[in-house]
């Protein structure tokens, strides 16, 4: 059976590639060191495939039809999407997919009552492209992108994300293959992309959220970190942390917080986290 060998999370702010040098030298160094450490730990875990949980920024789906979750089932993923490449200051990248496992996720999800949309050709903006740039620059790991809706009302709750994470863990581990799988959440921390508080970062919320991850008490996190609290810390953006909550369900015990930067210059609370222990 397939096994989960690593679980991580990082911010995918477009500033991390598009206008990286506009943040302080200190933040640039912190971000480079933390992502290098994530890559080092990822390589040590020897995954065959990265399952990345991000959100669709209204790129693949129009606002009249936004599925809760969407799986990219292509044999190869190409990004960034037209027009977003210039914004992210990134050359086009190509990463092999894992079509068989991706299609398994969709079909086994249905068997377990989890409705997952899929796309044979997915487009990529910052959500997948920025973590790919830092964690998989040589495309050595295959990729299955899974996007969610966390910005078009109604926005799912953290409880729902955790429940989906639990189902995803069962789905992936039930795959009749011997894949080694790393799960990676992308997005957050506090920010309000395009809202009135576009420049704002809620350092207090971010440090509180990261402390909850360091404690490793899932029940406490789900009880205290409500959707309302996320929205108050930056509407339409902070709820990208639902991807982190989803990945949390793959883990147990405390997380290592590798770095945190309240980076107004990148318009996002910026953080990198690795979990040490996978849920049994």
């Amino acid at each position, binding site marked *: 059976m397939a096994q989960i060998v690593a679980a991580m999370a990082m911010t995918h702010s477009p500033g991390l590639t598009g206008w990286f040098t506009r943040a302080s030298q200190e933040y640039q160094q912190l971000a480079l060191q933390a992502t290098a450490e994530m890559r080092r730990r990822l390589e040590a875990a020897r995954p065959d495939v990265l399952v990345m949980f991000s959100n669709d920024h209204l790129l693949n789906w129009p606002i009249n039809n936004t599925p809760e979750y969407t799986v990219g089932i292509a044999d190869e993923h190409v990004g960034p*999407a037209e027009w977003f490449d210039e*914004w992210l200051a990134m050359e086009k990248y190509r990463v092999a997919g894992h079509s068989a496992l991706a299609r398994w996720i969709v079909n086994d999800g249905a068997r377990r009552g989890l409705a997952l949309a899929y796309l044979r050709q997915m487009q990529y903006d910052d959500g997948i492209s920025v973590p790919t740039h830092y964690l998989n620059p040589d495309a050595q790991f295959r990729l299955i992108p899974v996007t969610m809706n966390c910005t078009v009302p109604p926005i799912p709750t953290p409880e729902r994300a955790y429940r989906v994470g639990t189902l995803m863990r069962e789905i992936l581990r039930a795959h009749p293959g011997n894949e080694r799988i790393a799960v990676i959440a992308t997005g957050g921390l506090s920010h309000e992309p395009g809202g009135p508080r576009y420049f704002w970062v809620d350092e207090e919320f971010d440090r509180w959220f990261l402390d909850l991850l360091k404690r490793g008490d899932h029940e406490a996190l789900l009880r205290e970190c409500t959707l309302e609290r996320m929205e108050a810390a930056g509407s339409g953006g902070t709820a990208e942390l639902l991807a982190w909550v989803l990945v949390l369900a793959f883990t147990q015990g405390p997380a290592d917080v590798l770095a945190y930067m309240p980076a107004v210059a990148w318009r996002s609370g910026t953080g990198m986290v690795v979990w040490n222990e996978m849920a049994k």
Partner: protein
Amino acid sequence: MGNVERCDKTLPTNEMIFRVRGDAALRARFVSDLEGLAREFGLSRAEYEALRDKDPRRMMDLGVHQYYVPQILRLFFGASHNSNAHAALECYKRAFPEETAQAMALQERLERGR
């Protein structure tokens, strides 16, 4: 709840930007013939004027989804080097002076603390 709850999921502008963004010909027309494009997509006069005036506050008051607002501004001003000094962000500073001042004070405080 938060600002994102204010979006009007049925607003024609939200449908238009989804189509325009990924199509080079429509992106060019957005700049050269916004009024004609707005008519074709069924935008109201108020929607068209908020776009024409590059006013994030009015766009969101009408129900434009907050993700699309910076994209609309990047269609006008270009997508590269989108730092806080970019022309698209200057529109935010004009539209939301109080929120901007708070964020800039925070940045100063954070940098002074180091």
